[in-house]
């Protein structure tokens, strides 16, 4: 192994690590705020990548019907809830808006010729389709059981993951897809050719991490979310709605997931079931951070990416074994060094 190979492997590891880092942050955020281990995080990645590819191919995006179905289910459960309370059924404007949004989006997609649009608009359309899924899933599946033990939340998360993978197969088919790169430029250095897509991935990840940092430290909503993560009961006493906190964290999770999907799609082919393994590696990053620390989780995710790249070179047979075995020493170290405080269940 010489310097050049080490550099290329390092570059590869950092690209993957950057994506894992984003997912690790999002898994961590959702877990601390809602106690849900977001297994379906990977589906947002796969859906983001595949929706972008479908738009570029000029084919109809069938996934938008999932949005419509979830919106109808959401409206229905709101109405049921109102019927049970004394105030009776009232059609609120937010309810109408929630129903109108996916239908308007479906109509727009039907009339637009998405293949001819600039790439930035395609990416924005993809986000418009995928991101609302996050809050919708929270409203339908997690909000009604928000106070259940975390084991039940985990089981529901697995169920949602399995269902979404099946829906992905229906919506996108079994074939893989990749998208055209954001820009074709390559930068030649003495030892290394830097692909511009690399810069896009790393740049966007860093930018997103900075934006998240500012959001959590400088804005009132970010602080509210942080408060809910630190102590749910305390935050509730201070007037922070747990429903808002849950929906907001799921919104961020689907946003980060879909963005990661759009970023990674030009580099590799994504299949309807690719998301799980990608988010699992992000999850290992989050474990390294002890499921509490954001900077440690990001560092952990980068380590996973680098380890993956170098073990693929040295022992390609055992690449995944090496990466997933990493979790054991960290869990041991974590449980030996940290004091475990039992939170209210």
């Amino acid at each position, binding site marked *: 192994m010489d310097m050049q190979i080490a550099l290329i492997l390092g570059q590869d590891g950092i690209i993957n690590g950057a994506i894992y880092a984003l997912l690790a942050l999002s898994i961590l955020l959702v877990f601390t705020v809602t106690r849900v281990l977001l297994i379906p995080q990977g589906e947002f990645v796969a859906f983001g990548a595949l929706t972008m590819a479908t738009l570029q191919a000029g084919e109809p995006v069938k996934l938008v019907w999932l949005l419509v179905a979830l919106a109808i289910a959401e409206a229905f459960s709101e109405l049921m809830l109102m019927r049970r309370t004394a105030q009776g059924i009232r059609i609120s404007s937010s309810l109408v808006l929630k129903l109108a949004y996916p239908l308007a989006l479906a109509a727009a997609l039907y009339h637009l010729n998405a293949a001819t649009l600039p790439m930035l608009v395609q990416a924005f359309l993809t986000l418009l389709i995928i991101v609302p899924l996050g809050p919708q899933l929270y409203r339908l599946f997690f909000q009604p059981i928000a106070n259940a033990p975390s084991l039940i939340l985990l089981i529901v998360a697995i169920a949602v993951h399995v269902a979404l993978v*099946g829906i992905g197969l229906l919506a996108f088919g079994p*074939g893989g897809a*990749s998208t055209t790169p954001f820009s074709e430029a390559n930068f030649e250095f003495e030892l290394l050719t830097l692909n511009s897509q690399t810069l896009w991935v790393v740049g966007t990840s860093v930018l997103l991490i900075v934006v998240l940092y500012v959001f959590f430290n400088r804005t009132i909503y970010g602080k509210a979310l942080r408060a809910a993560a630190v102590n749910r009961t305390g935050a509730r006493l201070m007037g922070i709605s747990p429903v808002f906190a849950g929906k907001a964290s799921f919104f961020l999770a689907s946003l980060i997931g879909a963005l990661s999907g759009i970023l990674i799609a030009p580099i*590799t*082919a994504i299949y309807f079931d690719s998301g799980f393994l990608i988010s699992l590696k992000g999850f290992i990053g989050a474990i390294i951070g002890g499921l509490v620390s954001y900077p440690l989780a990001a560092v952990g995710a980068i380590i996973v990416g680098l380890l993956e790249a170098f073990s693929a*070179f040295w022992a*390609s*047979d055992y690449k995944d074994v090496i990466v997933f075995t990493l979790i054991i020493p960290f869990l041991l170290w974590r449980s030996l060094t940290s004091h475990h405080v039992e939170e209210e269940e």
Partner: protein
Amino acid sequence: MLKTLPTLALCSITALSLLSTSASAQIKVGVVASSTGPVASVGIPQKNTAALLPTTVAGLSVEYITLDDASDPTASVTAVKKLISEQKIDALIGPSGSPNAMGVIQFAAEAGVPMLAPVGTASVVLPMTEQKKWVFKTTQNDEIIADALIAHMVKNGVKTLAFIGTADPYGENWSKVVEALALKHGIKVVANEKYQRSDTSVTGQTLKIIGAKPDAVLIAAPGGPSVLPQAALVDKGYKGRFYQTHGAALQDFLKLGGKKVEGTILAASLMLVLDQVADSHPSKKVAADYVAAYEQKYGQKPATFGANVYDAGLLLAAAIPVAAGKAKPGTAEFRAALRDALESTKELVATQGVYNMTPADHCGFDERGRELITVKNGQWTLLP
């Protein structure tokens, strides 16, 4: 009372429908296809093809019961057990994946049900054991495909070869076959790498391959993931020749690969280049009929994986009349007779090639079951 009435009605309808199906079909064939899960690209055309199989053979009606195993080997075993105990099937077609088929063999053999496996790995029929006697395989053995590829390498002066395959039974078996054949023909295998079907990057492996400076690279992976190493090698500036296995023989390969797979050489059944094959090829008409029937029903061309199930249907259709002469369908004697009839299949022309089964060879393909194909201007082109 009012509440029980619909339930009662439902029960009687179900009972009636059960009675009617068991009364009408004289022969039952179970089909297990992975139409969901990771192997869905293989399983969906197979499930679709099951609906095109002959429903009347030698005056006997044949019913096909299709179940999905979600690409999960445990679910395959459950599905097969269910088909055997509840439906009392006379034969089994499937499952779609190699690990799934390996897990099912034991149960098919114990129940004495002939099993036609449309899977890639030769391990389902080789080495022949007491249990594998019940298994027949409707895809080309890796050796037949590898023979053609290595012969092409020898002819074109390839001296050093790098191999990269998936870390699953498909890639493992190819790795073994290629090492052995290359040694025999004096080709040196300078790198042997593995990757996962779900990998998003193979940079490490490709760097190692480029470092070994091979004349050619052989990639063995089932389905779309076969493109990944080739694209990565082209991106890194590798200029040698690429060989692919019959695992890459699907339209997705061209769609995902684009310009990067131009000039790739692979050996596969004639399905890919049907209109370019000489009319004298025995399989041409059978394959064309299948493609036409599939297109008419589903509006798209079938992947070769579907043809493997179609061939299983043709093998059964040829064996059923022989077995029906010896025993009554639905009995263990009939199933045993069916197995014997399948084993003595001679010169059966099917979509993939011509089958000649023997007690030792339950695959039965010869060189008529493969064509050398290249990618030219983004299309599959027959190599002369």
